[in-house]
């Protein structure tokens, strides 16, 4: 009987070519189908490298010293055929501008590009592209040149271009780093939609206040090593989180300062929970 994990990483170690230092060292974890997992860590922790390893781009695109396994539905990503892999797992990168292939001059054609490459029948391409553009509120922009879209629209286009391939897993590497708060909220709403559709999501994000509202668990990386893989409140309640200087959600910081924990003994990470605890604390002090 095969494994039920959607993604399983076993003792993954990787170093880029000409580098003495391991970008990832002995990483092991599992993600179940439909889970949304966040990855946090300082710059250089190996977050992007892990994203590339999940999609098989490490080691296919980036050679180097690689050991261990990345299993997708029990199959090593290095053994899965390229055509099958791109429809199983998709990747959205940080810079929306450089994800526009430049091969197509309208938004519609840009989204259709991946399906054309895979030989999907024309009628199905039209159906899928229309559905995705409407779902991401880009249908009105379908005849525009991709390079004339705003940052948020470009990132939605990048997501649409990957979603149209109907991947089972979506990896997003800091998708909101170049977006304003409104655009960030839109991208997270899309992530929420995808989560409700059962897509397994792996998300690298520094905006913790938003991240914790959507993820089931967080992987905490430091210098290529996995420090912890657990629920958000447990991660941000770790005593060593301060010495690693990765930051934390502002509500968690506030509650830490006031030494206010939730009923499970952890500092709250979500806005609504933090508000509830602060209200209780205020009521307690009023008596």
């Amino acid at each position: 009987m095969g494994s039920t994990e959607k993604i399983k990483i076993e003792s993954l170690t990787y170093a880029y070519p000409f580098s003495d230092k391991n970008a990832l060292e002995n990483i092991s974890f599992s993600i179940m189908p439909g889970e949304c997992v966040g990855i946090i860590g300082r710059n250089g922790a190996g977050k992007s490298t892990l994203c590339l390893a999940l999609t098989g781009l490490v080691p296919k695109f980036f050679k180097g010293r690689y050991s261990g396994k990345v299993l997708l539905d029990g199959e090593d990503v290095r053994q899965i055929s390229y055509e099958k892999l791109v429809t199983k797992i998709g990747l959205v990168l940080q810079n929306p501008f450089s994800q526009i292939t430049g091969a197509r001059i309208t938004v519609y054609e840009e989204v259709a590009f991946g399906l054309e490459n895979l030989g999907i029948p024309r009628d199905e391409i039209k159906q899928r592209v229309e559905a995705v553009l409407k779902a991401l509120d880009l249908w009105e922009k379908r005849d525009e040149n991709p390079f004339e879209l705003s940052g948020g629209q470009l990132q939605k286009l990048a997501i649409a271009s990957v979603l149209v391939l109907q991947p089972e897993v979506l990896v997003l590497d800091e998708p909101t780093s170049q977006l304003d708060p409104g655009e960030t909220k839109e991208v997270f709403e899309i992530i929420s939609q995808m989560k409700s559709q059962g897509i397994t999501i792996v998300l690298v994000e520094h905006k913790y206040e938003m991240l914790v509202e959507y993820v089931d668990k967080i992987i905490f990386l430091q210098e290529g090593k996995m420090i912890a893989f657990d629920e958000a409140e447990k991660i941000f309640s770790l005593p060593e989180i301060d010495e690693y200087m990765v930051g934390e959600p502002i509500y968690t910081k506030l509650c830490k300062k006031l030494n206010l924990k939730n009923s499970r003994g952890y500092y709250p990470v979500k806005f609504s929970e933090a508000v509830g605890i602060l209200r209780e604390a205020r009521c307690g002090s009023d008596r």
Partner: protein
Amino acid sequence: MRVLGLYVERDTPVHKLAPFTKLMYAVTSTVVTFLFPSITVGILFLVLSVFLNTIARVLKHLIALLMVVSVLSISIFLIQGMFYVGNYTPLFSLLRLTFYKEGLLRAVVLVLRLFNMISAFGILMLTTRPSDLIDDLVRRGLSPNVGYVIASVLQIVPQMLSTATRIIDAQRSRGLEMNGSFHKRFKAFLALIGPLVLGSLLEARERALALEIRGFEARTKRTFLKDFSESKR
């Protein structure tokens, strides 16, 4: 400018023709005028090309292109008229310069050839989206990698130009002088070229990843979203 190219958006029968058909017309009409260097052949194909440009409602744009080469045409008449090696029948003199019949006739053939080439390729460039031309060539066997390189240059070069403008503005705001002596301008060039080239290389790498993610290397038979009637099999 969003995309490099001369394409003029219209809805005409010429626009609907397959890009490869138009390319073949342009190549054929150019080659024929070289193989049969006569005034009659030149005029015939020029009239045909102008007619097609008229049907395509891009004649105004074609005339703009032809104006660009008209200066060259004048020089062809001057040089061939006076110095063509086969000159022996003087036709007229102007300011002590003698113009010969053979040279002028040859100049007519050459200018017709030039105008014909511009008009024939004008049909292609003015009525065909570059991405459609490349797709049609890929459909007929051009390597998709080569097709992508050509297509992306048309889109990305204008973006690089606007990035260069932003870098120049950023460097200016840091006190870099862009005008003045050669030394100053060379320094400014170095300050521009470093970020532009490095930034472009990093973007190229990310773009290559985006292509990988979109199945660009797939070995399946590609679908082409657009279909031209002559391309149907």
